[in-house]
Every structure is written in C-alpha cells, then in structure tokens.
C-alpha cells in the first residue's frame, strides 16, 4: 500500500491510496456530514450530503465513494456546499413526517443532528405531510415509515452482514418504501432472525425497539464497524 498526499480545506493530508476522500478527511479531522454512509456497509452515495468540490472537476463528487488521488485539492465546506446540504436536509424533513417532539430517537437522531449542523432553523420548502403507515407486527421491533429517509442502511446490513435480506426498497420515486418480504407485515416474514441490526444502524427513529418511548432510542450505529472488525480479527486468527 502506498500513500497519497492531497489537500483538504487547505490542510495537507496523507492517506492510503485506497482511501476515499471521506476517510482521508476524517483521518485529518475534517468532518463531512453523511447520512446514508455507514462504515461496514457498501456505499450507495444516495443522500448527497457528502458532496465536495474537487478542483479541476466541474461536477460535485460524493466523498464517500470518490477515491483519493495524488495532488487532489478538495473543498468540503464552501458556501455553495453548505447551501446544498441545508437543502438536502430540508428535502428530507419535508418529504416525511419527522416530528422530533414525539420521536423515539429524539436527541439521538442523525437527521436531527444534521439539521442542527446545516443550520436549519426552519424548512424553506413546504411540508408534504404524506400518509404513511407504521408496522408494529414484529414482536420486538417497530417500523415507522413516517420517519424513514430511505438511506437503505437496514437493507444493506440485513443483506451484507446478517445475510437474511429481509428488507428491500420497493416502488419508485416519491413512492419508494422499505418493505419486508413480499411487502408483508414484518412479523410475518420468516427470513427475519430478530437480530436487530437494522434497528441498530437506522439513523432516525424509523426502526426502533418496541417499548421505547420518546427520546429513548439510544442506538450507536458505529457498533457495526466494531462488530465487523471483531469478526474479521477472529477469522484472521490462526
């Protein structure tokens, strides 16, 4: 493995040649906001929060999948990017029903945190107020579609880590929805191992432990990376 040197927000950064801009930035202490990205899962570059400007490239690039290259000059927090990020967060808030005050994840929600970081004191776009259901059929967990931002972390963790592939995204566009099995009640899907990883990685209050009430969901999605590291170490051990 060799090293690449690049510049991120005026800082010289050395990083592994197979690193992404996001990894290089984090190593250097530069925080780029993310939502769909989660260490341990394949990247999908769907939320567009981590878009950055790279000198010499007309298009904005998602830091989560853009590999570093020698001499790259990256800007992660220009006024243009900050305006884009606020709009992304507003689009998410207005397309669902994110009522923080009565959410299990209130105070421990990545979406809520991002909103503060991008300076969203109100949404400049009108709220859509979609009519979305809640699935409480699983004995231990619940799914509130009102709070789902379609980051697909649950789909990926169930497929890539647990191997059960209970979840998938169904339908299209604004009608996209996470489904279990054949769009069945979650509790009716045999493939579910009740492992709870989907709940663990969910950035909002969309997936939750039954019995948790307002503000009581305290998940730490970064536990996934720790789990995978431990698993990897075990497999590598002689």
């Amino acid at each position, binding site marked *: 493995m060799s090293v690449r040197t690049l510049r991120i927000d005026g800082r010289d950064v050395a990083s592994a040649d197979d690193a992404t801009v996001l990894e290089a930035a984090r190593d250097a202490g530069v925080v780029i906001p993310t939502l769909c990205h989660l260490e341990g899962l394949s990247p999908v570059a769907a939320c567009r929060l981590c878009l950055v400007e790279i000198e010499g490239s007309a298009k904005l690039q998602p830091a989560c999948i853009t590999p570093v290259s020698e001499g790259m000059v990256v800007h992660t927090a220009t006024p243009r990017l900050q305006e884009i990020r606020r709009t992304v967060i507003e689009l998410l808030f207005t397309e669902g029903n994110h009522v923080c005050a009565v959410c299990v994840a209130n105070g421990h929600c990545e979406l809520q945190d991002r909103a503060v970081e991008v300076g969203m*004191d109100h949404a400049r776009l009108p709220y859509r107020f979609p009519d979305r259901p809640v699935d409480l059929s699983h004995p231990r967990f619940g799914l509130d579609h009102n709070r789902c931002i379609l980051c697909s972390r649950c789909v990926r963790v169930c497929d890539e880590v647990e191997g059960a592939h209970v979840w998938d995204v169904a339908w299209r566009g604004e009608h996209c929805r996470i489904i279990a099995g054949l769009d069945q009640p979650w509790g009716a899907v045999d493939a579910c191992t009740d492992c709870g990883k989907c709940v663990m990685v969910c950035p909002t209050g969309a997936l939750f432990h039954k019995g948790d009430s307002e503000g009581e969901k305290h998940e730490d999605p970064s536990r996934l990376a720790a789990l995978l590291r431990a698993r990897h170490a075990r497999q590598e051990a002689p």
Partner: protein
Amino acid sequence: MSLAAKLPKLRLATVWLAGCSGCHMSFLDLDEWLIELAPRIEMVFSPIASDTKTYPEAVDVALVEGGVGNSDNLALIYQVRQRSRLLVSFGDCAITANVPGLRNPLAGPAAVLDRSYLELADGSAQWPHAPGLVPELLERVLPVHELVPVDLFLPGCPPPAERIRAVLDALLRGEQPLMEGPEMIRFG
C-alpha cells in the same frame, strides 16, 4: 434608576395558535428572570399575561406559538403580521406544524372530525357544530411561515427557557440573535 428603565419599553406580544401552550409554559420557566424582564417590556397581548382580547397595533415583537389550524388562527396570524414589527415563530408547532400537524396526512377536516368525534367517541358521537362559536378547521395545519413572512425562528418542543432568554436578551439589546448550534436550533 437602572439603565433599562430609561430605554423605551419593548412592546411584546405572545400569541397562542394551534399548539399545546407548552411554549408559553417554557416562557414561564424563565422564573426569576421574568422579574428582570418585566420592567424592560410592555406585555401588550398574551394568553398568560394580558386580558386584552384584540391584537393591538404597533407591537415590537410577537412570539407566535402554534401552527395555523383553524379559521380563527388564520385571521389572527394575518393581523399579527400586519401589526408587528418582528414576528417570531415560537416553537416547533409554529415552524413545522409539529404535533397538531399529525392530522395533516388524514384527508381533510371531515376525516379528522370523523376520527376524533365519531370513531373514537365513547358516547353521544357527533361533530361539534356551532357556527360563529367553534372555528372551522382548515384543510391542513400549516407552519406560520407558509402563510406570512416570519422574521425569526425559535425551534424546540418546547424551546428551553434558556433558548428563549438568549433570544429575548439579544432582541432587548437591539441585536439579531445568533440562531445556530444545538443550544439554539435543535427541533424536538
């Protein structure tokens, strides 16, 4: 005499639309600071501190709690906008429709009334109907800024007392409050 007393008093109003009055309760949570505040303001309209029933002219700052959910709310918010220099959306309901807005996914007022007064009724199920007395529900509960221009957003459900104080402090000094960071703009 203190310096504050010499300055012209800020004409303050607080308004209660479709909300639970929790933001007003949080305002009362300012406790002894209210005593400091009292000489610096003139409370010209408020459900908790004034008997005035008509919204007065020439208000300096209006803290508006609640979304706009019925015909009374609608009439009042236009009046508030017209007669106030600085309109503050006070709390999540005014900014996002929040909990009152939970009715919005239902298909309009009829569905809401059916659900509330017929389906969930224990006995004598009927719609409340008293024209001129019970205000008509609007199609949806809307955030204030979707109807009239808003000058400042003060999120929170309710906004913590310290957040309210930070905002009022700045306004009393004639400054624009700095609305950023988790202390100032976290929803919920």
